[in-house]
């Protein structure tokens, strides 16, 4: 059992939790993820490690309440326990060997997984320019944290309630066109459509672009192959070969299709959960 020691509501749909998991905290590195189960008959879901604290023995996770499991996770309070929490899984992100300039793009709940990467770049002495975006201002998360580790922070909202009125790709386009500022590497984390747009956008410029994928997983240790993704024409397992891959090599069409495998079931599970909650039988 894994205790929830902190809970913060970051926005209407985004929540942060610190979970007591000393073994995981001892090892966690930027780019890695954990798998958790809320309770005994729950599903296993992967979440990126947003932060870790070796001394406290805690792992920070940030999640958007989109489906049954994340909504149920959101109902738990400090002092309650998760039945399972395992990690750190996946390969740590590789840091560039030479100092340089990195552009980090985080969209929606993708800001959470991009944050530890930006922090790692920053701590390694890289110059990081960050672009974060969300549908609306209320859904923007980790703005202060991102600002603290970025040389510049650009904000976008789809509805114009904060920062640039438009998409993260608009800002990135300006940077790509600005020949006076060389970009050594771009890292983008967010919804699949956003990562696909950015991959296509940066390809002609030949700038190395990384994405962190979040496909459906079961075990997270390379055992089931559920998270397979075509990268450069080869099948990779996101859980053990990733989750960070070269954006220009990822087959986003296939990945998008595979991520939709259980749409019907996700709906059934969510409806059942919301019905059980209303009837007071949620737990």
């Amino acid at each position, binding site marked *: 059992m894994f205790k929830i020691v902190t809970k913060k509501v970051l926005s209407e749909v985004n929540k942060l939790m610190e979970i007591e998991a000393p*073994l*995981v905290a001892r*090892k966690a590195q930027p780019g890695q993820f954990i798998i958790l*189960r809320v309770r005994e*008959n*729950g*599903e*296993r879901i992967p979440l990126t490690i947003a932060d870790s604290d070796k001394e406290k023995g805690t792992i920070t996770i940030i999640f958007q309440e989109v489906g*049954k*499991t994340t909504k149920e996770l959101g109902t738990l309070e400090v002092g309650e326990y998760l*039945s*399972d*929490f*395992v*990690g*750190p*899984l996946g390969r740590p992100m590789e840091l560039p060997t030479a100092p340089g300039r990195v552009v980090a793009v985080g969209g929606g709940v993708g800001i959470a997984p991009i944050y530890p990467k930006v922090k790692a770049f920053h701590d390694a002495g890289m110059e990081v320019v960050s672009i974060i975006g969300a549908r609306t201002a209320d859904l923007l998360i980790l703005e202060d944290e991102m600002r603290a580790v970025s040389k510049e922070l650009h904000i976008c909202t789809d509805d114009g309630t904060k920062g640039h009125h438009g998409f993260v790709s608009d800002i990135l386009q300006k940077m790509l066109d600005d020949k006076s500022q060389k970009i050594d590497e771009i890292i983008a984390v967010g919804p699949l459509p956003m990562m696909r747009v950015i991959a296509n956008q940066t390809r002609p410029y030949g700038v190395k672009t990384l994405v962190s994928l979040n496909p459906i997983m*079961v*075990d997270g*240790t*390379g*055992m*089931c*192959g*559920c998270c*397979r*993704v*075509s990268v450069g024409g080869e*099948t990779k397992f996101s859980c*053990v070969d990733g989750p960070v891959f070269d954006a220009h090599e990822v087959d986003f*069409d*296939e990945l998008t*299709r*595979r991520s*939709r*495998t*259980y749409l019907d*079931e*996700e709906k*059934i*599970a969510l409806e*059942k959960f919301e019905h059980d909650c209303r009837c007071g039988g949620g737990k």
Partner: protein
Amino acid sequence: MSLDKETIKELRKLKEKHPMPEQDPRERIKNFDEVPFGYDQETAVKEAMRCLQCKDAKCVEGCPVEVDIPGFIKLIQEEKFDEGIKKLKEKNNLPAVCGRVCPQESQCESFCVRGKKGQPVAIGRLERFLADYELAKGVEKPEKPAPSGKRVAVVGSGPAGLTAAGDLARMGHEVVLYEAFHATGGVLRYGIPEFRLPKEKILQREVDYIASLGVDIRTNVVIGKTITVDELFDEEGFHAVFIGTGAGLPQFLGIPGENCNGVYSANEFLTRTNLMKAYKFPEWDTPIKLAKKVAVVGAGNVAMDSARTALRLGAEEVHIVYRRSDKEMPARAEEIEHAKEEGVIFNLLTNPVKIIADENGWVKGMECIKMELGEPDESGRARPVPIKGSEFIFDVGTVVIAIGNSPNPLIPQTTSGLELGKKGTIKADSDGATTRKGIFAGGDIVTGAATVILAMGAGKVAARAIDRYLSTL
């Protein structure tokens, strides 16, 4: 119940095993309950009477965990069931599991003299009988030996790990058993279906027994990630490590379309169903999605388990697709028989070449080619050769790939000093000793995908070798 001399005489001549009652195939494909019901006491005693109590009992040679087979059968003959189970457990920590999933026909029973003229004694069924007898009445708490003061980490709680852990604990060592999943049992939990090995009723209770021997079980720890093998020695203070991480890396065919929606590795298909209980969705959260027509590629035990699982999940038509002929099918005869009884259709000498998707990326068919058998290949089996122009399209909506597993690379990749075999296995000698001092290994991680009982045998042998090694420290 005591049998008169005449009856016993007759039984000793009986050529066939006593049949074990089982669920009707038409009924059982609608549920996940266990298929065979097991012997009752009377049948068990009668079957035991078929054993001739050979002085030089060959059956024992066929048992990788060295069970005193005539010994426990004699006790059944005498209706001393409590002593019988004790005898069995002297060597076998998991009798209820073995009695169900061991391929006895190619192990102990293949050596039984009764098999020369008729069928061998049903050793497996008798083992199962004693194990179930004990589970029904409550398992006796074993005595704890004097502590040796030595600590051993066992990595992986599958058949090899459970056996090694149990034996090491009985030798007085302090054992910590690490499992990556949230539940113990390895392939016994995620791979073998409920209808062959009930999880709560049987497996969990066998694991509880291992824990009662003093084994400290820690789930949710991925050795190689959460803790490395080096750290087990340097930071956690273990004196020896046993690696039994199995063959947990699914092989795919490498044909176009394999990443379509609706294509599962057998590992994923079975893990969703067995470990995550997708057959109970939405009471359990994890779903599984199945078309009406399912093809399972491969003809080993895992393929049979997948095919029979697909039927129970509601598929209307389930096909085995296998590139060789029926003679080469690696599955146990009993599993093939059960699958056939349940209506699984066998498409032999048929090889998939391409998986075809609809406009949304879902499987809508699988192109196959007919094969014929040619000269034997390096495995000694006739090599299947494609028949030109025999391609055809199978209109299936779900494909399960059950063509085998490779060793899980997580520990080999993160542990220094381990010499590896060609296919990523860990090299170990006949005692399970690897090329690094203090590290032992056994089961599928050493042999490549094999059987539960061979893994248990390797766990047993390694436990003895570890015990000897610890005494030198």
